């Protein structure tokens, strides 16, 4: 068999033997931004459909969860930076070719939108939180303003939700040097996953039967879409360039096979899909609460696998002969 073996002593931390520059912080950030995107879209659609009374949790309580999520996401992103002292440089320039630069600016708009959606629902959804805000003239004005302009904000939120969910996937796609992550289907896959995540949160939090019924259907639909998009993504990679074909082999017999199928596809997609399919036929039993929890787990695992396999897959594969113990001899 014709082979090429590349041996080097290069051993740069987080680069060798595989790139590991993006860790749990980026994965958590992608997951939480996806959840926020889903919250923006669902809340906005309920407002635009004038269904706030029937879907109280989605209209009035979900935005705060989205706001907390985006706050945590930003915190994790900050924690990821290895040179934190100049973090403000993200806002010192706009680089049109850099997807992350688009994200930095878009996230500011997303934070504003989810904040306004939170404020419009605060009096109805969280009266205990609204009372201290209402004690201040500025607070009252802000709550009134957000309630009055909730429909224009909702229109903007639908657009921003779709864009920011697409951004999380596009960020992966744009990294051409990471073949597994570089599929054009990542953006719709991450959007669908974000919607499924938000639907799962609604199912966990909502108590109104009508709201629970609708979102169990939405969740079922989103997981079906997710399975289809995932299958298409794998097919897309399997028909791609040589490095993409090699990268997808990591989940078909390679080192990530067990993790991908046993710890992601089955528990994070197929089991909730079966539960939700069962739930569509009749009353939603309490044990079925496991389904949205598994969807949340699956959404996190999706991002974990895309980021991890993306980084492991690459154009180069060096056999490293660097022995750090030799450095001790120099001391």
């Amino acid at each position, binding site marked *: 068999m014709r082979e090429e073996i590349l041996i080097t002593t*290069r*051993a740069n931390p987080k*680069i060798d033997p595989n790139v590991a520059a993006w860790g749990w912080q980026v994965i958590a950030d992608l997951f939480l931004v996806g959840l926020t995107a889903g919250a923006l879209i669902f809340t906005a659609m309920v407002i635009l459909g004038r269904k706030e009374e029937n879907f109280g949790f989605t209209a009035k309580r979900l935005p705060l969860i989205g706001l907390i999520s985006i706050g945590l996401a930003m915190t994790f992103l900050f924690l990821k930076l290895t*040179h934190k002292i*100049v973090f403000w440089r993200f806002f010192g320039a706009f680089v049109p070719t850099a997807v*992350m630069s688009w994200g930095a600016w878009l996230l500011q708009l997303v934070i504003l939108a989810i904040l306004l959606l939170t404020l419009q629902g605060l009096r109805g959804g969280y009266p205990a939180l609204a009372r201290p805000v209402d004690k201040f003239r500025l607070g009252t004005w802000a709550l009134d303003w957000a309630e009055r302009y909730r429909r224009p904000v909702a229109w903007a939120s639908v657009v921003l939700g779709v864009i920011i969910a697409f951004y999380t996937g596009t960020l992966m796609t744009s990294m051409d*040097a990471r073949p597994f992550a570089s599929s054009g289907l990542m953006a719709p896959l991450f959007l669908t996953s974000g919607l499924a995540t938000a639907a799962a949160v609604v199912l966990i939090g909502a108590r109104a039967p009508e709201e629970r019924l609708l979102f169990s259907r939405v969740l079922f639909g989103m997981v079906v879409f997710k399975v289809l998009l995932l299958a298409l993504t794998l097919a897309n990679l399997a028909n791609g360039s040589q490095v993409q074909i090699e990268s997808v082999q990591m989940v078909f017999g390679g080192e990530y096979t067990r993790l991908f199928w046993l710890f992601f596809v089955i528990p994070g997609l197929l089991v909730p899909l079966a539960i939700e399919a069962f739930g569509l036929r009749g009353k939603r039993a309490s044990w079925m609460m496991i389904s949205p929890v598994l969807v949340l787990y699956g959404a996190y695992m999706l991002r974990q696998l895309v980021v991890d396999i993306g980084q492991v897959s690459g154009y180069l594969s060096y056999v490293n002969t660097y022995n750090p113990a030799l*450095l001790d001899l120099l001391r």
Partner: protein
Amino acid sequence: MIRYAMVIDTKLCIGCGDCVVACKTENKVPAGLNRDWVVEATTGTYPNLKTEFRSERCNHCAKPTCLYACPTAATYRWEDTNIVLVDPNKCTGCGACIAACPYDARLIMNEGYVSKCTFCHHRVEQGLDPACVSSCPTRCMHFGVLDDPNSTVSKLLASREHKALLDETGNEPQVYFLT
């Protein structure tokens, strides 16, 4: 854009690692980190194998994906050339450039910012070759302006068979290996 290129003769390179030591000394690269490195590439079907040594580094691509991916413009081109540099005062350590580089040629300094080979632009500015080129004991490394047809690098590429690494990425790498 002025294109600087490095041409390395794999028939002469013996993999001694002097280029690596010279780079570390010239640029004060901390222990355990490397801006350049030597690769021993063995290809073929046993027992018909062929080994070549390659002194590798950032390829200072004409179309650098790392530069395009940097969200803070910390990665930039030096004075309208293809020499790609990183400004530590702008680099947040987000890792976008690391993910975007198909050569994995970047490294994270202990201070947190990303660094890489600079083609020793501070020496190039003074009309000198990069430290790795100057120190090579077999004179297998050459450096110069590719756009000048009379430069050593242009003449070598015109007269010898050569390759660049991962040409298929479309990055247009500017480190060439004579084969």
